[in-house]
């Protein structure tokens, strides 16, 4: 993707957020179209791009429009199936007496966008309480989902993990969470508090529980700052969209970001939104900009960003965040010598050679970072 290409997708990702940054509609030369379409598809921006076409902000040829519509149809098909699964899984968990909170996808699409078609999603995310973890895994298994990879060592999920990825026979992925993100920021926060910050959302004939707007803002900020690099433009759009909803309680955001050591994370997320989309919610900036992140937070955030991210940064930051020598030792043991089943699921084979490969990879983290 060229810089120009990223500018095009970023402009489309910002469509409708505020006054257009240019009076001229976006247009794409024929030779660049395949790459732009691929990027719009990859970033799940086809809905926003079509909205821009309808509003006259994206000038496309008939051929380009037809291809865009075809991709958006495919995304809407996928989103409907995942929405249906969100409802089915939510009902299954709550019928089993397990409180569950549906995250991201359908809840953001329905609550914060003018049209849910603007916000496709590719998986299902559900948060359960850590104390319910084992039972929740059993329930989703009974509903046709199998876990993609076992935990590295027994008890790892509940002590150190974010959750576990599951997949159905129809190839729908369920990210079952016990906290919001992997690593130190997931450990520093108190996910149980999130269960006190929920609301109900009607979807079709059913209702589900989702995070309230304030908790959604914090979650999306974490996802934007700590997720893929470069950041997914749709996630940045989510943050701008939720932040501009007028429903965020900024005092609560400030309280959580201080207590959960998220100041650097939320500030970084807002900087990304401003840099990529050019529209950042003013209220968010007013609330967050004056806060000063602690040294440990800044260091943990750096560990999630390139180049440290690809060199074991998150694992080392997690180790630093774990309290007590016995817990640290358990984490190192799980990372260095995970179970045979875990290695087979991750690398395709187990045994000593799999361990050697794992340790060899970890050893590369120790070599100097190449200068840019």
């Amino acid at each position, binding site marked *: 993707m060229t810089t120009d290409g990223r500018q095009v997708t970023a402009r489309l990702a910002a469509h409708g957020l505020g006054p257009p940054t240019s009076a001229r509609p976006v247009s794409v030369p024929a030779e660049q179209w395949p790459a732009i379409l691929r990027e719009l598809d990859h970033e799940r921006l086809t809905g926003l791009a*079509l909205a821009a076409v*309808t509003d006259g902000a994206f000038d496309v040829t008939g051929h380009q429009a037809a291809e865009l*519509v075809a991709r*958006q*149809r495919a995304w*809407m*098909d996928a*989103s*409907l*199936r995942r*929405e*249906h699964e969100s409802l089915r899984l939510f009902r299954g968990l709550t019928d089993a007496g397990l409180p569950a909170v549906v995250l991201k996808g359908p809840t953001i699409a329905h609550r914060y966008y003018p*049209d*849910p*078609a603007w916000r496709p999603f590719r998986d299902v995310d559900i948060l359960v309480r850590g104390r319910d973890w084992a039972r929740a895994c059993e329930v989703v298994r009974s509903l046709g989902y199998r876990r993609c990879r076992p935990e590295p060592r027994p008890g790892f999920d509940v002590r150190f993990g974010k959750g576990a990825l599951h997949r159905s026979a129809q190839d729908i992925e369920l990210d079952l969470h016990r906290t919001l993100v992997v690593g130190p920021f997931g450990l520093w926060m108190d996910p149980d508090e999130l269960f006190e910050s929920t609301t109900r959302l009607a*979807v*079709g*004939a*059913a209702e589900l529980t989702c995070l309230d707007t304030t908790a959604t803002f914090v979650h999306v900020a974490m996802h934007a700052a700590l997720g893929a690099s470069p950041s997914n433009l749709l996630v940045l759009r989510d943050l701008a969209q939720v932040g501009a909803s007028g429903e965020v309680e900024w005092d609560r955001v400030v309280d959580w970001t201080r207590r959960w050591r998220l100041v650097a994370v939320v500030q970084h997320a807002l900087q990304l939104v401003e840099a990529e989309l050019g529209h950042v919610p003013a209220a968010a900036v007013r609330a967050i900009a004056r806060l000063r992140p602690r040294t440990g937070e800044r260091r943990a955030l750096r560990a999630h960003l390139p180049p440290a991210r690809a060199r074991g940064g998150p694992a080392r930051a997690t180790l630093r965040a774990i309290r007590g020598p016995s817990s640290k030792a358990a984490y190192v043991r799980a990372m260095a010598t995970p179970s045979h089943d875990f290695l087979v699921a991750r690398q395709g084979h187990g045994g000593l050679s799999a361990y050697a490969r794992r340790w060899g990879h970890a050893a590369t983290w120790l070599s100097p970072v190449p200068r840019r």
Partner: protein
Amino acid sequence: MTVLTRTRAHPTELRVRHAPGLLSRRVLDELLVMAPSGDVVLLSDSAAHVWRTLEVHDRVIDLIEHLSRVYGAPTSQIASDVTALLNGLARHGLVVEVSAREATT
């Protein structure tokens, strides 16, 4: 009509509404609707127009007359297209007949 005629009423005398609780998404003027079977059904722009009009006109005869005016086509032609479409939607479980009791309330 084949699916929507469990009653003795003439098809155009029927009242029809969307099945409750359906999930759907718009793609420009088209509509994707998830059927109770789990299939996702794509409604073309004209089918989606009929779908949206059903929210206002649940009596099939009213629906046909409305569409006849909008499209400037004879009611006989519209009736044939609409009943075929409604039958297709009913087969997928996307529309249901309004019972006599519902219709009077």
